[in-house]
């Protein structure tokens, strides 16, 4: 591995994006250090995916500059950029019919331009093994379950072997077992392979348990940022998500609880502690 530069891995400088007259993001300034997992959390429409896709150069910013691994994403050569940063979006549809291994092999394209050398096959094997796909290697993608297909796409970006990995909701379509497994695999990728991983995650509890750093967005702005311990607090989360959130601690893990307002016996907002009999109507009217 090359020497780790002291400079931040990802830098956003006054990055802004709007659609028509509505502002989707920013202006945002942000630095993300080398290594570890950074989770972007926030309510729907907060600008998480917008920010991630701008960092991953799938979307152009209206203003500001983004640098990843020392390269300006707007001006750097596409091929050089593809060796430094890879991005995986939530939805991946195409008409071509491919096997898992063929898909993962595409991850080597920035390095091989399609002519696979022995080292490329090694990287493909590693990525396939890393995500437990060896037994599905030669299956076609349309023969897989949603979760398996998701893993195949993650294996593709892993095979790309970039320092920075950007993942937009990698846990969508995954059940509990596969979601937890995916996060463990990403944690391994950060710890063992030394990747810098930035991901958008819907469930803050995954961010709390697996991430090194959480960045909370709301209305296109960064409203909180810090370690899970700093962000996983009732007052912070309630403000970010604009809904009552409680935080409990279980086996050293801080978990947000927000599924139904908990009636607190003393000194709480009376509107939130109605008798249970009236609950169903209240939920219906919302």
């Amino acid at each position, binding site marked *: 591995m090359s020497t780790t530069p002291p400079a931040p891995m990802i830098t956003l400088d006054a990055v802004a994006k709007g659609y028509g007259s509505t502002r989707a993001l920013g202006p945002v300034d942000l630095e993300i250090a080398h290594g570890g997992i950074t989770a972007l959390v926030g309510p729907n429409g907060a600008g998480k995916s917008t920010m991630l896709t701008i960092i991953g150069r799938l979307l152009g910013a209206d203003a500001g500059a983004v640098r990843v691994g020392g390269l300006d994403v707007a001006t750097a050569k596409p091929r050089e950029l593809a060796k430094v940063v890879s991005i995986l979006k939530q939805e991946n549809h195409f008409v071509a019919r491919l096997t898992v291994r063929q898909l993962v092999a595409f991850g080597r394209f920035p390095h091989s331009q*399609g002519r696979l050398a022995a080292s490329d096959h090694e990287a493909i094997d590693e990525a396939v093994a890393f995500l437990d796909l060896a037994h599905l290697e030669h299956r076609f993608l349309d023969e897989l379950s949603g979760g398996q297909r998701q893993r195949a796409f993650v294996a593709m970006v892993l095979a790309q072997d970039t320092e920075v990995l950007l993942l937009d909701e990698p846990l969508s379509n995954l059940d509990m077992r596969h979601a937890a497994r995916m996060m463990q695999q990403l944690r391994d990728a950060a710890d063992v392979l030394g990747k810098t991983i930035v991901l958008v995650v819907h469930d803050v509890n995954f961010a709390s348990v697996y991430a090194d750093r959480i960045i909370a967005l709301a209305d296109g702005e960064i409203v909180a940022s810090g370690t899970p311990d700093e962000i996983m607090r009732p007052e912070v989360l309630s403000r970010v998500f604009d809904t009552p959130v409680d935080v409990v601690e279980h086996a050293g893990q801080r978990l947000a609880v927000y599924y139904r307002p908990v009636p607190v016996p003393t000194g709480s907002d009376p509107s939130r502690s109605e008798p249970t009999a009236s609950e169903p109507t209240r939920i219906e009217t919302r």
Partner: protein
Amino acid sequence: MVEIMSRAGRMPRAATRTRRHLGAIIAGAAALAFIAGILLVDNPVPFGLPGFWIIVESRAVAVATIALVAICQAMATVLFHTATGNRILTPSILGFDALYALMQTALVFVFGMAATQVEGPGKIVVQSVAMMLFATLLYGWLFSGRRQNLHVLLLVGVVLGVGFGSVSTFMQRLLTPSEFDVLASRLHGSIGNANPEVLPWAALLVALIAVVVWRRRRVLDVLALGRDTAVNLGVAYRREVVGLLVVVAALIAISTTMIGPMTFFGFLVATLTYQFVRADHHGAVLPLAVLIGLASLTGAYFVLQHVFYAAGLVTVVIEFVGGLAFLIVILRKGLR
């Protein structure tokens, strides 16, 4: 156990390869047989006399034209599907056939019967260049700046196509019946329209395009994964797609100026090819598409000329079959 698993896993891959090779062998053999048939069957001069070869030579012009058209249409449609990420569209949706019809109509409308005397490389070059220019301007404009939306491009193509069609129809109303008759024979694709003077130029251009496309086949594979994945893998997406559409325009322009517009032939060929190639990559799809195109066009020509004695109808029949295939594919996809 591990050995069994890996072998079982490899099976579908081997099976698809066999299937593809089988398809290539059948299509190649059929094309060769039909070409030989077109050249040799029903030769009025007995074998061995010098006249025999003169007739074969004159028929070779038709064969060469068919081959070029098949290569153009097959490649153009496959590349168009790759660029648009959609396998139901055909290049004619971009208004090329309509543009060709408009140019022909305008020629007859403005110059009358005299226009029919204008033939030769000059006319072909002007037509091809005009169509390429149109394509480059349209795509360049539509993909420039913030408007890089393929669906908008296709919609504009449809609208322009309808517009060109209306203008052509209007001009056709004003033609004399004899002028209209001359025009109609041009507007329906016909191998009889083939012009031997143009052949070498067209062949050279097609060969050049084929070499360029073949060398970039791996980039095409990445483009087929869609914009986001292609950008992620370091492909300059916009540049590649505009380049691809200009190549498609060039191929369609060459084919159209040689034998007139064909809407569904390319679609028929591409759809057949996808049936044979299950694990897609352009290294497999493109050659097979060309072979299948060659086999079906030579086959149709041979059968119609030597069995039904109706050579002029080749493209009409091909378009009929292609249109049927198009409807079947649309209905089947719609039902799923």
